[in-house]
Structure formats: C-alpha cells, structure tokens
C-alpha cells in the first residue's frame, strides 16, 4: 500500500486545470471536425481574429474586461461558499443605475460623474444581490435557485422599463437615450491619440484599467483584510465562523453584495464605455461566462485574469470565425464555453486521482533514488 503524497501547487492550480482545458479544446476540435470544418484552420482564424491585428487586441481586451468583472463577482461569493448565478441580472440592474445616473445627472462634470455612475452601478447591482443574499442568510432559501429567478425577474423588469419608461418618445427600439458625450468613458485609442500614439480604434476603454485595479483590490480584500478573512472562514466552515464570532449570515450578505457590485461594473464598460446607451440584454451572457472564468481561474484574481483573457480571445476570435467561415457561427464559441465549463468546472476532479497516482509513483521513485 503506497502512501499518497499531496500534489504540489503547480500541479494543483496549474497543470490540472490546463489538462482539463486541453480536453475541452480537443472535444471542441472534434465538434468542428464533425460539422465538416478543419479544426486547425479554425484555431488559426480564432488566434488571428483575437490577436492578429491591432484592433483585434482591443476587442479581445474589451471582452476580457467584462469577464474579469463577472469572474471576480463569482469568486467573491464563492469564497463565502455561495454560488452566485445571478451576475447576469445584477449586471443588468447595475446598467440601470449607470444609465439613470448618466441621463438624469448629466449636468455633472465627467470625473464626478464617473464616481457617481460607479456608485450607482454598485448600489443597484448590490441591491439586486441583496434580496437573494438576505433570503439565504436569514431564511435559508438556496441562493442558486433564487439568483436564477432573479435573473429572469431582472430581465422582465428591464424590458418593462426600457419599453415603457426609458425608451425615448417616438423610438421603436427598446433602448434608452444616448448618454451625453462628455459622460462617456474615454476609449483607449483616444487616450493614446492624446498622448500622440496612433492606435486602431476599438471598444477598449478606460474600464479595462479599472478592471485591473479592481482585481488587485479584490485580491487585497480577500486575502489581506478582516472581512475577506471572515468571508473565507464562513465559506470554508460556517460553524467555525460562528465559533469565532463571525456571524455567517452577515458575511453572506456582505459577500453577495460585493459580488453584485462587481457584476455591475460590466455596465460601466458596456453602457458608459461602449454602447453609450442602455440596450436590451446588453449583458449578453457575460454573467454566466463569469462562472467559468472564476472556476478556471481557481477563484484567484490572477487566474481570473488569465481565464478572462482566454474567454475574451474566444469571443473576439469567434466573432471573426463567424465572419470567415459561414458554417461556423458564433455558436461555436458558445459550444467551447460550455465544454470549458463542463471539463474545468464540473469534471475538475476527473484527472486528479490518476495524476495523484502518477505523481506519487514518480515521487517515490525519486525519493528511493535519493536514498540509494
């Protein structure tokens, strides 16, 4: 009977997820083959579309921005042992906050407005997360089901508001008025131009920088603050948290509200940065992808950044793909997304026993070699 050895970190958080990711990509390749296209060509187009030219980078990072926000949102809740499936709805409602602020407080100068809009997004997103959080914390209603329900409720609410309230007189499209020019987040290419650097135009805007800053803040928060510590304690062992005087319900609510606020930053990127108005379904599934991003990134901001970049690449490359190969639509990206979540999330333990065994055998041989 061999003694098992604990896996080193680089295998645990590096090699294993990569192995799972690889499997997801291999299966995706098989799907491409099955529909009669050439996977190698698909990968080429994907990569070219994502990184092949200057503008592509901009698009890739623009998508990455959204995924960073939703990935961080999922991760913070997850550290508290909560499965927040509601990022989609929280981001959507966050968009309402941003839009209302931008439309009704448009007399404010930009820097102040930026802070106000950010706060509005956070408050709206956090408020939307608060109800499921409260119900979980105080009445034990499972947050998975309630956040799913809240996504639908948010969607209905927003349709109602966009159609009946926010739609400008005479417009047929259910979308809000454009926000004032001076309240828009500057595009990176504009900033670059101001600095005398020539850059291809893309939707990449200041919120990407903001996403990086927020990532660092989340990292500090989770691992270097008392609240972060408390949230992780509640997530890992709620009884121990109670014993320590960290009332779990309180931190469940805090974690969910932070999660909702983080989700809502998607609206900053989309509404203030790119679309400049509130569109129906502007969240476009970013909230759900955030789950995959966080799981792949092992709920660590750095991992989340890498995973977000991967998904940003898939999104942008995938858009290119659907332009280049008519038989492959954007749906290919959705398939890859699904497979990545399946293999890196649901089946994350699939290879673990085998890898552990192989690694143990190798280590034992190594040890024996050293002893000899």
């Amino acid at each position, binding site marked *: 009977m061999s*003694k098992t050895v604990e896996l080193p970190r680089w295998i645990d958080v590096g090699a294993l997820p990569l192995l799972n990711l690889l499997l997801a990509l291999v299966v995706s390749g098989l799907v491409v083959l099955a529909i009669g296209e050439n996977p190698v060509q698909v990968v080429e187009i994907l990569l070219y579309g994502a990184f092949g030219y200057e503008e592509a980078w901009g698009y890739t990072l623009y998508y990455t921005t959204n995924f960073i926000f939703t990935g961080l949102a999922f991760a913070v809740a997850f550290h508290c042992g909560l499965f927040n499936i509601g990022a989609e709805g929280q981001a959507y409602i966050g968009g309402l906050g941003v839009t209302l602020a931008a439309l009704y407080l448009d007399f404010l100068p930009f820097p102040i407005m930026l802070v106000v809009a950010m706060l509005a997004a956070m408050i709206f997103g956090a408020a939307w997360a608060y109800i499921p959080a409260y119900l979980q914390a105080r009445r034990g209603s499972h947050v998975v089901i309630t956040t799913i329900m809240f996504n639908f409720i948010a969607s209905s609410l927003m349709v109602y508001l966009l159609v009946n309230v926010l739609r400008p007189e005479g417009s047929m499209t259910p979308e809000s008025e454009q926000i004032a020019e001076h309240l828009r987040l500057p595009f990176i290419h504009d900033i670059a131009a101001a600095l005398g650097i020539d850059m291809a135009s893309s939707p990449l805007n200041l919120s990407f920088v903001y996403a990086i800053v927020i990532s660092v803040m989340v990292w500090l928060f989770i691992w*270097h603050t008392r609240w972060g510590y408390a949230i992780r304690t509640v997530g890992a062992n709620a009884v121990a948290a109670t014993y320590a*005087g960290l009332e779990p319900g309180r931190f469940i609510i805090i974690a969910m509200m932070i999660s909702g606020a983080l989700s809502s930053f998607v609206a900053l990127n989309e509404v203030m940065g790119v679309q400049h108005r509130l569109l129906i379904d502007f969240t476009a599934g970013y909230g759900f992808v955030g789950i995959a991003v966080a799981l792949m990134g092992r709920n660590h901001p750095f991992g989340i950044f890498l995973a977000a970049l991967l998904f940003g690449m898939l999104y942008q490359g995938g858009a290119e793909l659907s332009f280049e190969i008519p038989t492959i639509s954007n749906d290919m990206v959705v398939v890859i997304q699904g497979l990545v979540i399946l293999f890196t999330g649901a089946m994350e333990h699939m290879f673990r026993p085998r890898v552990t065994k192989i690694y143990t055998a190798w280590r034992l041989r190594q040890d024996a070699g050293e002893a000899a």
Partner: protein
Amino acid sequence: MHQMHGAGETGAVQPAIELRGIDKRFGAVHANKEIDLKVDKGTIHGIVGENGAGKSTLMSILYGFYQADAGTIHVDGKLCEINGSEDAIAVGIGMVHQHFMLVETFSVLENVILGVEGGAVLRDGVEKAREELKRLEREYSLNIDPDAIVGDLSVGLQQRVEILKALYRGAEILILDEPTGVLTPQEADHLFRILDTLKEQGKTVVLITHKLREIMAATDNVSVMRQGAMVAHRKTAETSPEELSELMVGRKVLLRLEKGESNPAATVLKVDNLCVDNAQGVRKVKNATFTVRAGEIVGIAGVSGNGQSELLEALGGIRSASEGTVELNRQDVTAGKGVDAAELRRRGVAHVPEDRHRMAMVTAFSAKEAAILGYEDDPAYQKGGLLDWDAISAATANMMSEFDVRPDNPDLKAANFSGGNQQKLVLAREIMRDPELLLVGQPTRGVDIGAIEFIHKRIVAMRDAGKAVLLVSVELDEIMSLADRILVMCDGAIIGEVAASEANERVLGLMMAGVDPNEAKAAEGQA
C-alpha cells in the same frame, strides 16, 4: 501481546466471524492495521478502544460498507467475499451504525423494508412486512409504531428501528456501534435486555462501546484496539476495567495529576438559571446554576449528549440562551442578548470547543490563518488597515514552539497536521491569549499521552495564574485529575456537585446516570 483464545475452548464450533489480516487506509490515515478477530457464535463480543482507534472502520468493513485493502472475512467458517452491504446482509450480518442510517422522512415501516421490499410494487411486500414487524416487536419487546415518521422519533426509538431493520433482514450476527452513547440509562438498560434475548436465541452480537462498565456487565469476550491495531483479546470474566483501560491507552492510566491546592478568589463566571434549546427547540440545558471563581478549575462531568455541549456553546456565545443569565465579572454576558462569541472574546473569554474539526479549525486554511480564528481583529495583527501576515506568522511560530506543534510550519495547511497537533494549535491560540476565563471541552480527545500530560499542565498553570477554568469532559479520569470542583450533568440539569477530593468513579457514575447525589453518596458508603 496477542493472547488469543478461542479454538481450544470452544471446541469444534466454528466462530461466527473470523477476520484475518484486515488492513485499511484512508489516504494518510492507517485506520486498520492487519487486524485478526474471532467472534464466537452465540456470544456478545465487546470491542473497546479510544476515539479513532479504528473500531467503526473495522466493523464497517465486515458489513461491506468499506472495502478492506487486504485481509479476508470468514463467516461460519466459510470465506466470504464481502463487496457491499448486500453481501453482508446475505450472510446474515446486520449492523447498527454509530451514525444512524435512516431516512428521516420515511415511516418506520418504509425504513425497515428498504432494500427488501419483496417485489417491484410496494403493496405486495408491505403487509407482510407489517406482520413480520409485529412479530419481531413482540419477540424482542421493541414496541414502535410502524407508521410513525422516523424523523419525529427520539434517538432511542430510532435505534430500535435500526435494530428492527437488521432483524427483519434475518441477521444472525448483529453489530452495534456505540449504541449507548446517545441513550438514557433506561433506554440503555432496555437495549441490554434485548441483546440478552438475542443471545438466548443463538444470535451473535458485536458491541462497540467506550464504557467499560457496559463491557463488564454485558459481554462474554472483549477485544481491545489501539491506534488501528488489535492489541488484545480477553474473556470478560478474566479481565478488569483497569486492565482494559491500560490496554486501550497503551500504558498505565494516569489517575492523578500532580497539582497544588487551588486558591479560589473572586467569582468570574456566574451562571443563573440558564436554559438552552437546540436547533429543534428541544431544551438541552435546564436551569443550570453555578459559579466559577478565579483560580479554580470547575469540571463538568456527564454522559456525552446530556447538555454539556449546549452549555459550553451558550457560554461561548455560539448558541443563544433561552432563559436565565450569565455574568462575567458581574456584567451580563448572556448569549443572544447582543453578546456573541466575538464580544465574549473581547471581554477575555477563551473557548476551546469540544469538536475541533467542526468548530475550532478551518482545515482548508494554513496554520497561520487558523491561528487567528476569532482574533483576526486583534490590533497586533493589523497594519495599515490590512492584515499583517508577517506578524501573524511570527505569532503562529511562537504558538507552535510553546505548544510543541509539529511540524512547526505556519504555512502548512491545517488539514495536514495530525489530530493531536491541531488540538495543540487550538489550545495554544486560546490559552496564549491569557484570558480571564477559559472554557474548554474535551481538551485531550484524540491526543497522545505525552501531549495529554502537557495540556493538563498548561491548564493547571492557568488556574495557578489566577484564571477561571471551566472544563467539560466525558473522561472521568480527566475530570477527576484536573478539576477542583466537579458538577455532574444529567439530562440537561446539573444534578449535583462533588468536591474533587471526595470524588470517585462510582459516585460520579451513579450521578451521571441520574441518581440523586445524596443517594449516590449513600450507596457509595454502603459499598
């Protein structure tokens, strides 16, 4: 060491069960080490051993719940391949698990027929089962309403359902894993009468228990396990509790700790009429009234499950009090009235809970993270609004060297420390705060002998430093050697107090069983 009995005395009769070379590991834990065991037909066979000795694991292997890594199982002399519980049931083995295996939302009848429904459609089997159940109930006086929902039944009745389940499946060999740990004395007596009936009918019983008194009273033979190994087999009639406990622990049991007289000073903790309910609303602590003074150790003895846990949790601020008051240095600190565990800590109450894994440790954390649990807001651990991990690391290293935690690596995951070392880390965290009042439950559960002595010394040192200590333990030895005064809890009430100098195992035992203290002392006097 292995002093086997059996073949010679029982003659040609095959043992009902024979285990040979059973070996089992759970990851890093070696739960069973090449175990041999023979159980004679028609006897009651006891198995004793400390927590974590591997008793449950061994029996679960016999019942097919776990699969052994090595070894063979023989039933009635025949080699049996037991790959699952269905195989064990087929050869006539039944088991009452330590943690009941019942479907709480089902009726008694449904629980009993689960797996032996007697046909694809329930109706066919159910009526037959109802009849058969009636017969079994009569035969063993196991009265129970077959249509009652199991979740509504008391623990004692639930245990009857477990026994009925086994008997309904035609068990010839019945394994009971710590059946009395959760029973009232009356229920326990009833259980032993049932076991006798079973034995009379020629059935074989394996009984796991911590209580040597039960072993002496009820069994024919007894086997002792220690740290995963089978260390001895005895005829009950030829052994004594002293010998068994020595075998269990591996050396002569330390009955008295060297310690000086206590110098109790001002009252630190004053508990008045405290009542505590559990999550289901059942009153677990009934009108407890007592005090703990500075410079003394007050012990609370009792059979586990008699409200000590709830009492300790209420005093620690984890569970709300339903009635009564708790005062700390004359200030009201009754749990639930705006006072929680954090507030109590601020006021100088340290708490080592009974259940280390469930409560005192976050095993997913590194040692240094675990070492600040409950004290994360200590200013010494902060720098510039963030946690100061360097300071925390240093403090953890200090705890580790003071309490001899091994390995002394603050960055190692808590789960990777052995149980005893985890316990030492928890004790270090709480004791080194130098609290006014130390609440401590089962301080030496799962801890090796060397560490026990060390921990006991530290607790006495706290007392000698003028601190108040409230100690809850189910180990009478521990209570008697540490405490200056002993309170006995039974069925949620504190039924009496005994000075340590007057205490002995008999008196305490009687009181723990609910006998009035005066009667208990009188009975002791007569004995």
